[in-house]
């Protein structure tokens, strides 16, 4: 990377200016959106890019979007080399800039308006929509092909010179279960990009677009220097680790993910050769996901206060064999790659780093997002509904402390839907929401405990579960015990029956779904008289 001579003061100032743009876009999107998924759970990201499409700043929202947003910009530009002022590209195609179908990304070029218009950069935001059609409500099915998972939107010009392409919008809305909500969310996404564009233009007007462009480059170089410095501090060598997905939701066989991490001076090679081929079920991760997972782990090692930008990946070579689980090709089904496989990729990366004796990585966390989708028809409110939620669990024990309980870990940080908001909006009732005590692995430091959430449907409904670590437990480190695997149960007429980790099921009115999420792994040999959990267990 070609680093211009950056003034240390201006560097710091632009760091704030760029980050503020991405954050402000996030505020607009969160507050103006319609689906609980975006406004309550904050399942979205906003980012700013340079004129070459390199990510300069991303607001700290969802890690799984980190490495993948730049590929969206690249796909948009490739599809429309003639993008002009006021244009906005929408896409969700996992094989052309997307990750899985519910994540719809809007990309806007930002042009300095004075003639002739000059490209100054891009802004983009991605939001997880609660439904994009396909074979089951919520569009997170256990499918065999991506075509079953929902409407595929290749890069399309949703806005041309500021005007919405109504035909295109109608096409999208006709293919989803809750079109009004989608429309509201899309407007919020458009508003967020417009705000980002406005702010970047204001910056260019104040400092000159050349200076702005120059400091975009300087900040990329800055993060790269920080990353190189961090890598140089790790012991050089080759470290291997392997872990498994429970299954792909179609067959029962565990699916291996393997990594060989080579650290050499200021550089690293992350090689996933040996990982299983892409699967029939929807657990396949496109390359963007794998890149995001690598990015996330590096970012954690870097520490706080380093801008989230492309410079972080510059010293890293990622080898992900095409056609494998971690670089799936069409027409693989991919709904779970984003939310489940991404977590296991992090697990293998951290496992390898633990071998490197980095001495700072935790044992395995819950390793799943426990995706739960319930949909059907709500006679009382008179319309279709699609409810999507992910559930936190235990975090792995850390080298000097217990793992925290009942939180989202690694690749996601979405909020829960408040019980009072959920019951107001959907024909569902929450019966309990509690810490699943004792589920964290024992060790010198204990893994965090998972969560138990019981939901009753008040109407007939279809539920889809996409969860992991139901069979194979989150690993402990240095003699620490693994965390307890999760459990999915159905309570019908007083009878309890286990449900698999992945699958779609018909529910009758009154059925209760009990989701118990995994605990984190322990770290270090358990001490004999295991101390009581500090978060306590009062019977």
């Amino acid at each position, binding site marked *: 990377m070609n680093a211009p001579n950056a003034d240390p003061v201006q560097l710091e100032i632009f760091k704030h200016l760029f980050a503020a743009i991405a954050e402000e876009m996030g505020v607009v999107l969160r507050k*103006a959106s319609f689906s609980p998924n975006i406004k309550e759970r904050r399942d979205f990201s906003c980012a700013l890019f340079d004129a070459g499409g390199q990510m300069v700043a991303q607001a700290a929202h969802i890690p799984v979007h980190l490495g993948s947003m730049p590929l969206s910009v690249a796909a948009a530009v490739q599809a429309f080399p003639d993008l002009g002022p006021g244009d906005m590209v929408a896409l969700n195609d996992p094989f052309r800039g997307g990750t899985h179908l519910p994540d719809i990304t809007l990309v806007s070029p930002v042009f300095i308006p004075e003639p002739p218009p000059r490209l100054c950069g891009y802004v983009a935001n991605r939001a997880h929509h609660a439904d994009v059609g396909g074979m089951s409500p919520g569009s997170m099915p256990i499918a065999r092909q991506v075509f079953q998972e929902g409407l595929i939107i290749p890069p399309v010009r949703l806005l041309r010179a500021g005007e919405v392409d109504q035909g295109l919008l109608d096409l999208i809305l006709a293919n989803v279960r809750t079109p009004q909500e989608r429309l509201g969310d899309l407007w*919020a996404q458009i508003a967020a990009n417009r705000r980002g564009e406005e702010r970047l233009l204001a910056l260019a007007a104040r400092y000159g677009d050349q200076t702005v462009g120059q400091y975009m480059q300087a900040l990329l170089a*800055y993060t790269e220097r920080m990353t190189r410095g961090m890598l140089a501090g790790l012991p050089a060598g080759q470290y291997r680790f392997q872990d498994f997905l429970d299954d792909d939701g179609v067959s029962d066989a565990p699916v291996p993910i393997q990594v060989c991490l080579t650290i050499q001076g200021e550089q690293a090679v992350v090689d996933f050769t040996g990982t299983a081929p892409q699967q029939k079920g929807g657990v396949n991760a496109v390359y963007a996901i794998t890149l995001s997972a690598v990015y996330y782990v590096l970012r954690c090692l870097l520490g706080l206060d380093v801008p989230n930008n492309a410079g972080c990946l510059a010293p890293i070579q990622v080898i992900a064999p095409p056609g494998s689980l971690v670089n799936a090709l069409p027409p693989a089904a991919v709904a779970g790659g984003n939310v489940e496989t991404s977590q296991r990729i992090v697990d293998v990366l951290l496992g390898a780093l633990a071998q490197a004796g980095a001495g700072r990585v935790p044992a395995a966390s819950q390793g799943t997002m426990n995706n739960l989708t319930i949909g059907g028809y709500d006679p009382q409110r008179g319309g279709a509904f699609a409810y999507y939620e992910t559930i*936190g669990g235990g975090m792995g024990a850390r080298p000097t402390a217990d793992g925290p309980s009942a939180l989202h870990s690694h690749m996601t940080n979405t909020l829960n839907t*408040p019980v009072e908001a959920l019951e107001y909006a959907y024909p569902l009732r929450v019966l309990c929401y509690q810490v699943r005590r004792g589920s964290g692995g024992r060790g010198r430091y204990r893994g965090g405990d998972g969560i138990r959430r019981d939901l009753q449907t008040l109407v007939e409904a279809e539920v889809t579960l996409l969860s992991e670590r139901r069979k194979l437990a989150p690993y402990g480190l240095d003699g620490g015990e693994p965390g307890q695997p999760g459990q999915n149960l159905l309570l019908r007429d007083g009878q309890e029956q286990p449900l698999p980790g992945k699958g779609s099921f018909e529910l009758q009115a009154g059925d209760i779904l009990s989701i118990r999420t995994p605990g984190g792994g322990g770290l270090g040999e358990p001490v004999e008289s295991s101390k009581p959990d500090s*978060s306590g267990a009062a019977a």
Partner: protein
Amino acid sequence: MPMHPSTFIGIDIGGTFTDFVVYRPSDGALRTFKLLSTPHDPAEAVLRGLERIAAEGWGPIERITHGSTVATNALLERKGARTALVTTRGFADVLQIGRQNRPELYDFSADPPPPLAPAELRFEVDERVSAGGQVLQALAPAQVDALLAELRRQGVESVAVCLLFSFLHPEHERSIAEKLRAAGLLVSASCEILPEYREYERSSTTAVNAYVSPVLERYLARLAEALQAPQGQGQAGPLLRVMQSNGGVIGVEEARRNGVRCILSGPAGGVVGAQYLAGLALAEGDRPLEQGPNLITFDMGGTSTDVSLVAGQAQVTGEAQVGGCPIRIPLLDIHTIGAGGGSIARLDPGGALRVGPHSAGADPGPACYGRGELPTVTDANLALGRLAAEYFLGGEMPLHPQRAFQALERLGQPLGLPAFQAALGVVAVANAHMERALRLISVERGHDPRGFTLLSFGGAGGLHAAELARRLGIPAVLVPPLASTLSAFGMLAAEVVKDYTQTVMLPGDTPQAEIAARLEPLVQRAAAELRAEGIPGEQVRLEPALDMRYRGQSYELSVPFGPGLLEDFHQAHERAYGYTRRGVPASDLEIVNLRLRASGSLPRPALTRQPQAGRDPRAALLEHRPVVLPCGESARLPFYRGEALQPGNRLDGPAMLVRADTSVWIGPGDRARVDAYGNLLIEVAR
């Protein structure tokens, strides 16, 4: 106003100093002073100050209003009461799980804050209310008896009760609260503290109240007792009032039960004081402002900076978080950043000049205080000649310019920069932090800074205010004479304010009469409670508002209750988010919460206008000294003593003004004048 001469006192207890403002309406006498705070027993400094006031012969004290960090510190330091939480069966852990998100995305070592009620003190009862407000399972009274026994056995001091959907059906919470209160327990019921939906935020707010109220109660009881004693002779002591975070005051009885409302009262006092002073200063002649002033307040201290926006009225938010606990009651929207005069500058490994988040604090303090070695913002200002060492804090605190200079030299060395260049860089980065905070509360919330005045208070702000105003396009800066005791002054200027809220979930086409009927219970309660505060019914000002959204959204915008309601909402939405859905039927809008703000005025300090002296400020001129200008050139600038300036004096920048409590930079091209109240008004050059 009472007929006999009486005195009002405003007190702000801060971490370092306890500030006093004494005011006597009969002759307009006003005095301020500071004492060192006594964190082990905050009442001690207060009583010492009151003794001093008594010794000075101010006469009988009618009213003492104070803001205190007692509740805040109890929360931040987790030194509150032993608190239990009572919830619906199945939901005792809501307080621990929160929103299930972790505090830092990229930091394995970050832990969520521990819940205020530990697991062994969280209890569940069998009861359930639906989202429609119907009772699905009634509360069996017998369980409350068992609960009471257990609470006693556990030695619980304070109890928070938060049941699902209690804002729709408060009876279950009330019956628990009644029984526990009858047994002598202090109970915070969520239907009383915050009858709004979202169980975690409501539990958290209620738990904070339960956790801090007993601490506040002990403190207030100690103070009240001490105040009664010397007056004796059967005479009632002064009326004690407490500042709330919403910018209004409440009586002690209220404060004891509603400790959560007094969190962040100090900063709120500053905003209220700023608003009051600016209202006078910016008025055209004798005509008071019709709308209230448009202000951005800027309080830059040693370790942090508070900013807020007043658009006619101070802005209120319901989204505060203190010590990791969401607090959803209305608070003045004050944004705090961890950068101030004591923030430490360093060069990071990536080659960026960073300022903060670490602060040198009071110990060791900036390098120029004589103990620390690391360069801070204060050191940078000193090295640039913008702080005059011998006048700092009225000359009571000697500074060491050489140490500041050396620290900055070390900072600049790896970059090949001389000390003064490094110092300019430190100031520029510090200003970037401040600017981001100021933009956040103005531009990002739809306010154009060009229509505002920047009001600077706090010790460190005066050196930065003019440059920040220039960067934001703010046309004027106002520095009041009470720059370091403005919060305490604000306590005297505050009104009695009480906020009420109720979640209703009504469709947008609900007839106005029905909305009014739903508001009526809040109005009744407000009238009764303000009467208890000594505000007669006809003087109570009521401001009803509705939190609205398009059906399906989950963040609401507040609009005043009135005939133009729906259009007002569309417009507010357009302003906030850049689009509306004006075409949708009214039934597709949703009225989520009713809000009512009830207020009543108290006599305020009537500041008197001083006669104008001439324009010539030379009587206050101390000397000419070398100062580094923002462009990097050095010039000999006039230094004026602020206390010696007269109303009507004019100063043309570049110039420096030094006062015991702050220093003010007047930039090149800026023109400043002293107004009739002693405020310095700087017209900022573009």
